[in-house]
C-alpha cells in the first residue's frame, strides 16, 4: 500500500461520496416535505441515460447535464403526481418509479451502449490549489459534480433552515394540516420538493455517464440510488450529517474495487452491505433516543394529505 494508492482511494472516496450526496440531498429534500421517494435508483438511471444521449447529440456537457436534471425532475414529478395529487401509497409508487426509470433508461440507451462519450465534464483545475500534496489530488482536481454537490448541500441547508420557504417545506413534512392552515399550499410544496429531488438524482445519474465512467451501460447506477435512500436516514435528515455519511459510504464503494490491490482478504460483497448495516444501526440508535425526544424523521413522512378528510 503506497502513497499513490491511498491518494487514489481518497480521491475515489470523495468522487463516490459526491455522487451519493447529490442523490441523497434530493431524497432528503423530498422527505423533508413529507414525500418518501423510493424511486431514486430509477431517477438516477433516467438522468444517466438522458445526459449521455444528449451529450452524444449536442457534444455539450452542460446541455447534457441540464437534460439529465430535467429528466430526473420530470420522472420524479410522476411520483409527485401519484402521491401528492392522487394520494397514492408512496412506497408502492416509489418502487414502481424505480422499475419504470431503470427499464425506460435501458430502452432509451440501447443504441448508445459502448459508444464513446459525446462530451465529458472534465476535472476542474484550481491552479495552485491543485498542486498541494494530498489535498490537491483529493479535493482540487475533482469533477465539477463534486463542487456542485458541495454547493447544493450548503444551499439546501440554508434554504431549509434559514428561509421562509424552507420553514414551509419542513412544516409540510411534519404536519400537512398545520402547514395548510398556515396558508401554504402543501401540494405545491411537496410537488416542488419531489421535482427538485428528482433533478438532483438526475444530476447524480449524469455524474456517472458524463464524468465518472463516462459511458452508458444498462444497470450503471448499480444500487447506488438505494444507498442514497439509506444515507438520508443515516444522516438523520440533516445536510451536514448526510455529507459525512456520504463520505463514509463513498469510502466503502471506493474500497470495493481496491481491496485486492491492497492485499486485503475481505469479500467485496460483504463490504457493499456495510452502508445498509450502518443505516440499520442508526435506526436503532434513533429509536432508542426517540423515547425521550421526537425522532429526527419528518413526522408526516409518507402520509398523504387531503384537506376535507374528517
Amino acid at each position, binding site marked *: 500500500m503506497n502513497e499513490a494508492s491511498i491518494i487514489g482511494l481518497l480521491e475515489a472516496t470523495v468522487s463516490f461520496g459526491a455522487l451519493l450526496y447529490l442523490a441523497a440531498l434530493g431524497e432528503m429534500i423530498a422527505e423533508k416535505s413529507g414525500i418518501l421517494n423510493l424511486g431514486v435508483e430509477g431517477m438516477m438511471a433516467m438522468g444517466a441515460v438522458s445526459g449521455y444521449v444528449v451529450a452524444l447529440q449536442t457534444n455539450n456537457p452542460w446541455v447534457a447535464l441540464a437534460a439529465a436534471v430535467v429528466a430526473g425532475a420530470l420522472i420524479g414529478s410522476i411520483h409527485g403526481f401519484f402521491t401528492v395529487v392522487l394520494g397514492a401509497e408512496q412506497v408502492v409508487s416509489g418502487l414502481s418509479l424505480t422499475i419504470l426509470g431503470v427499464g425506460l433508461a435501458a430502452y432509451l440507451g440501447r443504441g448508445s451502449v459502448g459508444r464513446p462519450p459525446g462530451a465529458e465534464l472534465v476535472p476542474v483545475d484550481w491552479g495552485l490549489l491543485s498542486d498541494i500534496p494530498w489535498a490537491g489530488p483529493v479535493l482540487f482536481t475533482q469533477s465539477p459534480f463534486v463542487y456542485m454537490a458541495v454547493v447544493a448541500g450548503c444551499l439546501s441547508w440554508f434554504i431549509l433552515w*434559514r*428561509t*421562509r*420557504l*424552507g*420553514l*414551509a417545506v*419542513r*412544516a409540510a413534512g*411534519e*404536519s400537512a*394540516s*398545520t*402547514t*395548510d*392552515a*398556515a*396558508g*401554504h*399550499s402543501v401540494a405545491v410544496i411537496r410537488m416542488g420538493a419531489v421535482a427538485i429531488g428528482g433533478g438532483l438524482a438526475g444530476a447524480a445519474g449524469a455524474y456517472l455517464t458524463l464524468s465518472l465512467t463516462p459511458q452508458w451501460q444498462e444497470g450503471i447506477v448499480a444500487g447506488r440510488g438505494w444507498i442514497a435512500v439509506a444515507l438520508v436516514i443515516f444522516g438523520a435528515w440533516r445536510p451536514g450529517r448526510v455529507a459525512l455519511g456520504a463520505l463514509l459510504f463513498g469510502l466503502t464503494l471506493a474500497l470495493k474495487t481496491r481491496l485486492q490491490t491492497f492485499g486485503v482478504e475481505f469479500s467485496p460483497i460483504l463490504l457493499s452491505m456495510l452502508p445498509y448495516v450502518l443505516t440499520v444501526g442508526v435506526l436503532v440508535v434513533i429509536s432508542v433516543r426517540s*423515547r*425521550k*425526544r*421526537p425522532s429526527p424523521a419528518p*413526522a408526516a413522512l409518507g402520509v398523504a394529505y387531503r*384537506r*376535507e378528510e*374528517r
Partner: protein
Amino acid sequence: MRNELTSTDTLGQPFAVELQGIWKRFPGVVANAGADLRVSAGTVHAVLGENGAGKSTLMNILAGVYRPDAGQLRIDGEIHHFRTPADALAAGIGMVHQEFRLIPSFTVADNVVLGAAERIVRRSSIESAVGELAERFGIATEPDRMVWQLSMGERQRVEILKALWRDAQILVLDEPTAVLTPGEADELAAVLRHMANDGRAVIFISHKLQEVTSFCDEATVLRGGKTVAASLSVESTDATELAGLMVGSSPAISERPPPGQVGEELLAVHKLRCMDDRGLPALDGIELTVRSGEIVGIAGVAGNGQRELAQVIAGLRSVESGTVCLTGEDRTFASPRQRFSAGLGYIPEDRLGVGLAPRLNVIDNAILRTYRDHCRGPFLDAESATAHCQDLVDRFRIQTGPLFHSIAGLSGGNLQRLLVGRELRGHPSVVVAAQPTRGLDVQGVKAIQDLLVAERDVGAAVLLISEDLDELLTLSDRLLVMHAGRIVAEFEPTTAERRTIGEAMAGHLDGACVIPEVVGP
C-alpha cells in the same frame, strides 16, 4: 327568538363576521342546516351547542377549511368565498383548533411565524419579535423552546400567538378550555378580553355554560346544525335558559345517585411507580384500593400522573416497581388481554386511537376486544360479529350509519357509547374510566355517568379519573386527589369543600385536608 336579519350591529357598523344560511353536508351527516352567526368587533362571542350541533363545522367554514354547500359569508360587510385556509387568513381570521395545529419538533417562534415569516428567517430576530408580541397581550411564553416540551396550556398560547402574529382581527377558539386547568382557563379569559378590548372579535366555541357566562358578551346557540338563538346578551340571559336552548328540553341536573353495596377489594394498587413518555417519574408510589360497589374518583390537575395511572392499570405502560392486583390476584405484569379476561374494563381517555380504531368500521370496533369469540376456525364469523355489534348499538343506543361504515362519521357522544358499551357489556369486575365524559354534550354525559353507576350497582369496582370536579363530586363514593404522581388527599365527596380540594390539587398541603380513611359500607 331569532332577531331580524340585519347586516349592521346596533352602532350601525357592519358585523365583523356574518354567516347566513350555511349548509354543509358530509357523507351521511348534515352538519350545518342553515346556520346563522353574527359577531360584532370588540366582543367575545360564544357559540354554544352540544356535540354534533355543527359548531366546529361552522367554524371550519369560517376558517376556510371546509367550503359551505350553500350560504353566505361576510367579513366587515363584504362577501367572501374562502377556498383555502389561506384565504380566510388573508381576510383576518385566525383559528385555534381543538387539536392544535402545531409542529412539535419546531420552536415556539418557528410555529408562530410559519406562513407569515420574512423571506430569510433569522432565529434571534423572530424570537425577540414573538417575545414582544406575547408581552403586548400579556401572554407568557418562551419563544426558543421546542413545542413538544410544552404543556397543553402553553401550546394553546402558541396558537393564539400565531393568530396575533398575523394580526387576525377575528379569533376563533374551538373548545379552548377543554385542555386547560381552571387557573389556565382564567388566564385565557384575560387574554381574550385583552383582545376584544383591542377591537378584535373573539369567537368562543363551547358547551360549558359556566365559562360562557363568565367569559363572553354574547352567545349564539346551535342545535342540529341550525341557529336556535342568535346573539343573545349573556348578561341578560339565564344559564338554565341557554342550557334549555342547547338541548331543546330542560337538561337533567345530575343528582347524586344513592350509594351502592360495598363489598370486597377488587382493585388494589401498591407502591406503584412508573415513568412518563419523556422518561421522567410519573407515578411516585401510588397506593389505592377500590372495592366492589364503589366508585373511587381521582381528581387532579392534568399531567399529575392520572393518565399514566390508568395506563399502568390497563397494562399499557410498564411498571418500575410496585404491584397491581385485580380481583385479588397480582396482575402487575399481565398483558392487556389477560387483564381483560380477568375482568378489567378500560375506558381510555384517547377515545380515538387507543379506545377505537378510527378507520375500522363499527362492527370491527365493537369486536376489537372479543374477536376471538366471533371466529370460525381461523376466520371471522361475520354474522356473529354483526349480531354482537347490533346488540351493542341497540343496548347502548348508539346512533350510527350502516355498521360496515368506518366510525369516522360518528359524533363524539356516539363514539364514547360504542367504546363504553364494548368495555362494559360483559360486566367487568373492575372498571377504569379515564375522562369518560370529556367533550360530550349534556345528554351524552348523563348516559355515560348512568352506565358507570349501573355497573357499580351490580358490584363493579369503578376507578373514575376526571378533570370535572362536579362529576367527581356527584359520582364518587370516595374522592382521591393526585398531585405530582402521588395520592395526596382523600375526601368524603358529600362533605368536602371545593376550595380544600382545589388546594390539594394545587399541591398546597398543610396536612389538615388529608382525611383519614374512615369510609365504611
